[in-house]
């Protein structure tokens, strides 16, 4: 069974409800699990990573472009936060906007060749970018304070100083929630459909009058913008930012979260971020195996259910239907004639996979 990205938009009826439930869960979480420093830290990090992973999923899952340099955009946002908090003293919305725009501009410059390049070259560009950013950060000591790292002052909204973990959490929650709503609105709009059309077939999209290269560049900019905003939050959350925080491994972990959570699924990305933070915080007990677990999870997901956690309901539903051999729901798996055959014959999904691979 060859996996196609165009399958990703099917069978997602519950996704909006899931997101609303998830939003309530995160809003109420401090009251439920208790607002101690450790849990608030884990929750805040999950929320910030959620925005990073969603911004990366915009590229990978919705645009079909892979980046392994998103830690670089995170760094730009974090240093922007530091510069603003320590020197410019911008109002918070302006500061967030600045972080996003700076990252977006860099994303634009890097994305410019993406319209003409095959996916492999873009990965190499983002790889170079992700490794270059920490090097540049170490050189630009005026802004980043070099090896010592940059201490970022507490933020303030009007009279409220963000110095408690709970205040920090809700601040991040609001910013990430607004960003995610914006992202969902864009995805549901004409531009969002154009992005996915380009992913599914560049030739067909071009034939429909979509400017393929421009769509890719805009998508790259858009993704970098939101990653920059997440970087701003990251800077305030960490309080101390060093160039060594933004490694290639971190970028790869974000990509792993996209894959494990589910390509092309916003809710899945939030779950992916949750899994990532969980594994990272457990690394004290899992020890040296955490990197192996994260990489291994990507490989296993790609080999078994490439749609990630978000596709599990669909996969399970299809499996149940095919084992019972009951009437098929129209519109599911119609693109693959083999599916209908196996469903009629009552063969499970696993068998079908083996049969078509042979």
């Amino acid at each position, binding site marked *: 069974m060859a996996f196609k990205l165009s399958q990703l938009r099917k069978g997602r009826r519950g996704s909006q409800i899931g997101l609303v439930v998830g939003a309530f869960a995160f809003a109420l979480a401090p009251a439920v699990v208790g607002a101690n420093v450790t849990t608030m830290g884990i929750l805040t990090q999950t929320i910030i990573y959620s925005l990073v992973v969603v911004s990366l999923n915009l590229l990978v899952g919705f645009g079909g472009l892979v980046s*392994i340099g998103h830690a670089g955009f995170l760094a730009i946002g974090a240093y922007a936060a530091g510069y603003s908090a320590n020197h410019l003293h911008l109002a918070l919305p302006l500061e967030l906007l600045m972080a996003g725009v700076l990252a977006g501009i860099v994303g634009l410059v890097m994305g410019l060749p993406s319209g003409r390049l095959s996916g492999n070259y873009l990965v190499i560009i983002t790889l170079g970018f992700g490794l270059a950013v920490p*090097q540049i950060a170490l050189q630009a000591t005026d802004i980043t304070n070099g090896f010592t790292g940059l201490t970022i002052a507490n933020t303030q909204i009007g009279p409220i100083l963000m110095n408690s973990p709970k205040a920090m959490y809700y601040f991040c929650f609001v910013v990430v929630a607004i960003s995610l709503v914006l992202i969902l609105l864009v995805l549901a709009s004409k531009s969002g459909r154009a992005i996915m059309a380009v992913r599914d077939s560049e030739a067909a999209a071009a034939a429909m009058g979509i400017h393929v290269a421009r769509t890719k560049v805009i998508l790259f900019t858009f993704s970098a913008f939101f990653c920059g905003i997440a970087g701003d939050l990251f800077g305030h959350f960490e309080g101390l930012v060093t160039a060594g925080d933004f490694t290639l491994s971190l970028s790869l972990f974000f990509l792993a979260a996209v894959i494990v959570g589910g390509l092309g699924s916003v809710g899945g990305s939030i779950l992916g971020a949750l899994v990532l933070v969980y594994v990272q915080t457990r690394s004290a007990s899992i020890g040296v195996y*955490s990197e*192996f677990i994260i990489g*291994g999870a990507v*490989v296993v997901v*790609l080999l078994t259910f490439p749609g990630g956690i978000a596709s599990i309901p669909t996969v399970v539903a299809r499996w149940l239907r095919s084992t019972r051999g009951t009437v098929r729901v129209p519109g599911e798996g119609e693109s693959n004639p083999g599916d209908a055959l196996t469903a009629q014959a009552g063969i499970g999904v696993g068998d079908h996979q083996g049969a078509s691979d042979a």
Partner: protein
Amino acid sequence: MTLFLQLVVSGLGFGAVYALGAISLTLIFKTSNVVNFASASLSTTVALLMWLALNPLHLPVVLAWLIALACAMVIGVLVEAVFLRRVEKSPIIIQVVMTLGLLVAIEGLDGALFGYSPKTLPHVLHGSSFAIGSVLLDRNNALMLAITVLLAIALYLIYQHTRLGLALRAVASDRDTASLMGIQTQRYISLSWAVGVLVAGVSAILIAPAISLTPTFMENVAVFAFAAAVLGGFGSLLGAVVGGLVIGIMSNLVSGYFSNNLQLTFVFILILIVLYIRPNGLFGRPVVSRQ
């Protein structure tokens, strides 16, 4: 002027290693159409196996080399057969992400098995540098250059003048047609993975004495190799060699005249500029594909 020449000559040694990395990427890409982003972790594994054979097991150097290289070929074949073959019909991004997942997983496995403390591999040659006029050439750098050039010539001859090479080129240019002509395409893809990881492993073993051997030590080297392959257009062995040497010399000049800590930045900007001007690399030809 002496400094300039010295930087060029000493850049050739590292350039040769980058060229080996680029040859490995090119060999695999030509037949299987996958850029092997897991290359860094695979070649690190080979270098670590060499260390295992030399230090805890105290095997003779020649035997250690043979074991490491044999393991490299087995690793190449296994990675292709177990992981990449099962996603070969998936979209390109799934294949890219598969190699990236393998990069993280294998790096993590190396870290868990061998630990993160730096290890050392011995230099192949001992003794002082040669002097050519006022310029010094390190023995091991000269060896790396010689191995790279000989390997490139051998691969070129195999590709262009043997039946094996003809079959490999047929698989590279059109797999379906090649298979209709009676070529066992799968066998040649396995072979190019075996040779590809072998070449990458040689590069890791050669460069390990110059930098400390850790599970992540090839990451930065791999970036230079990717840059070399981009310069070479990802399809030509000659391009890979020239690309590697150019990158080696230029990054050595950057570290000599500016700062040792800006090499990666330089490489990033170079890749970006090259791809702006020539989206298919300096030596590459545009590829027209049907969807």
